[in-house]
């Protein structure tokens, strides 16, 4: 058991050397007097550094870090909201380009009279028929809307 116990005797003897490190003999004769003098006449406050004048000192560091964190979070939120709003107008445009007929019949092709996908024929006030198809007459053989690649809306 004792063999396993580390022996620090030499370390402790070496540390005893530190007790012999002493300041010069007259050092403490005026020490208390200096302390009392400094209590009577406190040291003037040290001049502020430029960083402290701008409120960037060490005392203000936590506030600046909190502000910076808030700013970063705010920017992230603004970016997120802006990206969501940019998506919304595209979703609103989709019914104008190829609005699926929820109710009513399919729109007819002006040329062939065939029903055009995605357009509705709505009854007008005077009995005429109105469609949501574009006004310009398409060329023969061509679809009235160049974006014919839009898939036909699926019927519910």
């Amino acid at each position, binding site marked *: 058991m004792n063999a396993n116990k580390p022996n620090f005797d030499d370390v402790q*003897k*070496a540390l005893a*050397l530190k*007790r*012999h490190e002493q300041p010069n003999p007259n050092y*403490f004769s005026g020490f208390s007097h200096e302390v*009392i003098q400094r209590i009577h006449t406190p040291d003037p406050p040290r001049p502020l550094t430029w960083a402290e004048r701008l409120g960037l000192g060490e005392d203000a560091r936590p506030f600046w870090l909190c502000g910076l964190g808030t700013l970063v979070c705010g920017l992230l939120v603004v970016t997120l909201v802006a990206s969501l709003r940019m998506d919304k107008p595209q979703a609103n445009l989709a019914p104008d380009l190829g609005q699926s007929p929820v109710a009513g019949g399919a729109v007819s092709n002006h040329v062939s009279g065939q029903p055009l996908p995605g357009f509705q024929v709505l009854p007008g006030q005077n009995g005429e028929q109105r469609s949501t198809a574009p006004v310009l007459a398409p060329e023969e053989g061509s679809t009235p809307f160049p974006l014919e690649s839009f898939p036909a809306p699926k019927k519910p």
Partner: protein
Amino acid sequence: MSEPHLSRPRGPTIMSEPLPIEASEPLVPLAREEVASAISQVEESVLVRNAQKGDLACYDELVRRFQERVYATIYHMTANHEDANDLAQETFIKGYQALQSFKGDSSFYTWLYRIAVNKTINFLKQRKSRTQISLNDLDFNAEKDPDLIALISEKTPRRDLNLAELQSKLSEALMKLSEAHRLVVTLHDIQGLAHEEIATIMDCNVGTVRSRLFYARQQLQAHLVDYIK
């Protein structure tokens, strides 16, 4: 019965000795040396109480009583005489400013040590790795210390090692320890404080003090392996 100026302390404190001055005797102006001598006989609790009322002469006496120990602790922690001088003075100044907060839960010595330790650790953390060692000279008693003589001449692997070199290596090894480990070594192995007292100063339990002391000694032994067996 009227009480003289320096009255017996009240509360659950130890009784003070009968005071030499009684109210019935005519008052005679005392010389400064006599006043200092009289104050040096006064108990610590009375000095503290009077200092709390603003008596700087009593606080001066408290400074005189603890200046060497406070300075020594800070010096061994910083290994720099100039820094130790500044920090020791600031410790006593801070002690005077915070004197009203001393409630007597611990001894004044322990309370003052805590201020010194906190100031020193904050100073070392700000200074970080910019260590500037400025050691005091060894007094003449060092060469007569039998333990040191035996350590140098017989047990060191390097027989040509002298005390000054060992002092330098020892200080370097101490500065490699963390502040907490250096502190326990300073308070226990250099200044001879008990584990319980160290635990009060460092605000930890005795087991923590013992484990830190063990680890610190291990580290020192490893650092000084070329100089001591």
